[in-house]
C-alpha cells in the first residue's frame, strides 16, 4: 500500500469530522410518544421479515403458512363457509404465484433460445 494513501481507519472515522446520526428503521419520524410501538415491532411480533422481492422466498412463505393452516383447519370451530373462504383465498394467492412462475419460465426459455 502506498504511504500517502489514506488508511482504512482514517476513511472509516471520516477524520473525526462526521458524527453519526440516528434514523428510524422504518424510514419515518418516530411517534410523538417516545417509545411507542412501531411497524418494526409489529413485524417482529408476528415474525415478518422484510427483504428484497424474491419469488422463491415468497412461494416458500406461502407453502409454509398454508401448510400449517391446512393442518389445523379441521380442528377449528370455523363454519364450512369460513373454511371455504380461506381455501379460496389460498387458491387465488397460489394461482397468482404460479402465473408469475410461468411468466418467469417463459422469459428464461426465450433467453436460452
Amino acid at each position, binding site marked *: 500500500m502506498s504511504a500517502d494513501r489514506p488508511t482504512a481507519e482514517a476513511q472509516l472515522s471520516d477524520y473525526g469530522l462526521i458524527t453519526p446520526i440516528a434514523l428510524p428503521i422504518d424510514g419515518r419520524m418516530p411517534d410523538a410518544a417516545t417509545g411507542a410501538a412501531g411497524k418494526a415491532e409489529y413485524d417482529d*411480533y408476528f415474525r415478518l421479515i422484510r427483504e428484497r422481492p424474491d419469488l422463491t422466498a*415468497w412461494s416458500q412463505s406461502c407453502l409454509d403458512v398454508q401448510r400449517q393452516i391446512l393442518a389445523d383447519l379441521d380442528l*377449528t370451530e370455523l363454519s364450512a363457509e369460513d373454511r371455504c*373462504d380461506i381455501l379460496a383465498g389460498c387458491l*387465488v394467492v397460489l394461482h*397468482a404465484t404460479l402465473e408469475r412462475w410461468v411468466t418467469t419460465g417463459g422469459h428464461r426459455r426465450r433467453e436460452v433460445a
Partner: protein
Amino acid sequence: MSGGQLSGRPRLGRPGAGRVPAGAGQAVLRWKVGHQLFHLHLAAMNTLLVDARRALESRRWRELTESLDQLRVLYDAATATMRYASDFSPATYETLIRPSMAPPYLSPGFSGVLNLEHEQMLDRFRGLRRQFKQLQRAGELPAAVGEAGARLWSAQSRNRKNHVLVCEKFVPEGRSLLKEHFRAQEETADSAQPAARHDPREGEQ
C-alpha cells in the same frame, strides 16, 4: 415470544405464566400464523389493486372485472382468516395473547394500525373506489364491471362487521391496547401540567 429478542428488553417469563390456559400453544399458532396468512392475502390484494387500477385507467373491462372478483375472494378470505386467527377462548386472549402485545414484552400502543400491508391496501382501495365511482357516475362503466365492484364493496362491508365482532368477542368494552396507550398519555400529560419546564436530564431513554 419475540419480546425476548428485542434489544434492551428484559427476558421475562411467558405472559400469564403459572396460569396459562389449556390449548395455549394452539392459540398462539392460530393468532400468529393466522396473521401471517392475513399478510399474504394483503400482499396479493395490493398487487391486484395495482392491476385493477391500471385496467380501469386503460378501460380494459374484462381484466378489471377479473381483478375485482379475485379481490372479492381475497377480502372474504381475509375476513375468515381473522376468524381463524381468533379461534380460541376470550380467557386465552385475556391471559395469554393480549399481555404478549403489551409492556413489558412490547412497547405501549401496539396495535393493528402498525400493519404495513393493511395500511397500503386501504390507501389503494380508496384510490380505486374513488376512480371507479367517478366513472360509474359518468355512465362509463359496463354493467358487469359495476356488479363486480358492488360484490367487492359488499365483501369489504362484511370484513368491517366481522372485525367489530372479533373485537367484541375479546374486548367487549372496546379497550384496545392503542386506546389504553393514548388514554395513559393524556393522563400523564394532565398530571404533568404544573411542571411546565422540561429538564433534559430527566426521562432520557
